[in-house]
């Protein structure tokens, strides 16, 4: 039997499960010992970037084609950057609303107070968030997971990958799930339209840059209530971002992208099993946060 030239859904589900488990376990171990910035780099390089590269090496996949490392037009680049900038206020606002709801309805997670970060840790966080995370996470989620799910259809591919991307962010807190789903849908749509990870990396990098530049200041100013102007900016940003994304030209896809689409209509038992395991695991992470908010642990 010939080897597939692209990841299968089962491979994507297994890798997604392993990545989600080791990210949390690794963070619990490394973050207190090496710092939040170093831990971010370990997460991105080891647990998120390494699995798809390893899979490509084992299966002999040409990375440029399978993970869609393709050039895009200057216009597509600009649209990706602008739409990433425009969508960020909406992602931020949804995150704040969710967090406030959780804080008020369930309870606040007790914090030991903000700890001082060294200049090196701060730099690691900034570079990791703006450069490393967009590259590594796009290779994993859009290059590997979305590509695998595209065997069920291109639209299903990006929607499912967006949901997995969103629920993966439960590791950062329940309040990050919906914003990450929104961003995931935009990122997946960009790859679906352009057939290249370059667009989603630029979008992702811009949105993360906004979080680094404005997130801290806005979080302080919205700690009690969310001002009306932020809702207006968020809605306007969403509309602009959607309009920009819709305007992006569908670029010529590689015919290999869909050649095996018909062969993988059924997901293997292992694929389903690992998807269920991942759902249970991520739900448990969410329940653990709620228990923490209730003050039970």
């Amino acid at each position: 039997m010939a080897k597939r030239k692209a990841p299968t859904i089962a491979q994507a589900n297994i890798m997604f499960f392993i990545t989600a488990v080791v990210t949390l376990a690794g963070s619990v171990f490394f973050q207190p010992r090496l710092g939040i910035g170093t831990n971010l780099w370990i997460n991105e390089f080891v647990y998120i970037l390494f699995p798809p590269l390893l899979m490509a090496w084992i299966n002999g996949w040409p990375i440029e084609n399978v993970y869609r490392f393709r050039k895009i037009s200057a216009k597509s680049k600009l649209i990706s950057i602008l739409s990433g900038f425009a969508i960020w206020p909406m992602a931020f606002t949804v995150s704040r609303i969710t967090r406030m709801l959780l804080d008020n309805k369930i309870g606040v997670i007790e914090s030991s107070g903000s700890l001082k970060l060294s200049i090196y840790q701060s730099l690691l966080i900034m570079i990791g968030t703006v450069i490393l995370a967009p590259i590594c996470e796009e290779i994993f989620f859009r290059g590997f997971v979305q590509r695998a799910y595209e065997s069920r259809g291109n639209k299903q591919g990006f929607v499912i990958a967006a949901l997995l991307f969103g629920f993966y962010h439960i590791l950062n807190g329940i309040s990050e799930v919906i914003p990450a789903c929104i961003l995931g849908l935009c990122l997946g749509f960009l790859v679906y339209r352009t057939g290249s990870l370059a667009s989603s990396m630029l979008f992702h990098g811009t949105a993360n840059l906004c979080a680094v530049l404005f997130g801290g200041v806005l979080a302080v100013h919205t700690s009690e209530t969310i001002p009306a102007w932020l809702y207006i900016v968020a809605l306007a940003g969403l509309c602009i971002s959607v309009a920009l994304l819709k305007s992006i030209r569908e670029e010529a896809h590689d015919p290999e992208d869909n050649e095996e689409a018909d062969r993988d209509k059924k997901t293997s038992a292992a694929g389903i099993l690992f998807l269920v395991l991942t759902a249970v695991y991520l739900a448990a992470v969410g329940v653990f946060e709620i228990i923490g908010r209730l003050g039970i642990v």
Partner: protein
Amino acid sequence: MKKTICFILILSLAVGFSLVIMDLSDWDGFNVPSRFEKVTVDLSDQFGTDVLLFRKELNVPSTVEFFIQSNDDSAKNVKIVCESEILGFSSNEIEYTVTKLTGNSCIASTLSMNKGGYSVYLTSEKAEGKLVIGHQEKAADPSEFERLYKIHNGDLNNPPEGYEEIYSTSLAGKSRKDEVIYTLSLDTARNIGLSVYTSAKQGTVSVDFIGEYSNFTGLVHPQYGRICDQLEATLAPGEYRMKLTCENADGQLYVFIKK
């Protein structure tokens, strides 16, 4: 594009690796929040009995916050001596035993001191590690300090605004062991505030707030903290009991709650 991504990743790896190495070589195990003024003591240099580490003048009544860490295993005594009263304490001296406390572990303490000043002394044997004392002084709100000062001097019925009395008693001649003095039932998660004051200066007095999932024990002590003011907490739904243990004590006890 593959080359560009490879280049960025390799460059990032080189930069990141350098930053991690610099961070690790710079890290001494301490994590004192930046709001504190930091005093670092080299235990191989400063050791002995009651070695004066620093003195701080307080021109007005102040709230003084301490954050103490050490990367040395041996037990060291850090003594804070206030030249006037420390509200809620029977003595103007407080002693902490510090062992190895790094990363997120620390001794944290907040004291209300009257104006005058305070000194910090160390009793330690010669050791290789370091001791770090973070301290932050903030002028106390005059009306708040006056309220706490009254409580310190025995006028206990001075709760903060929004707090209501749920229990008060004279402790003289009372002997109680985990007697339930108040029960709180919550249907939903709620933020509450607790204030417990005692004027007992002898014997045993302990007030514990016990729930299925949250416990606050030893809220007051006759010598080491007669004032527990505005302890705020988010409580899960359930039943909470406030329990009193006392023996051979004197003075009064007042308990207030803000729901």
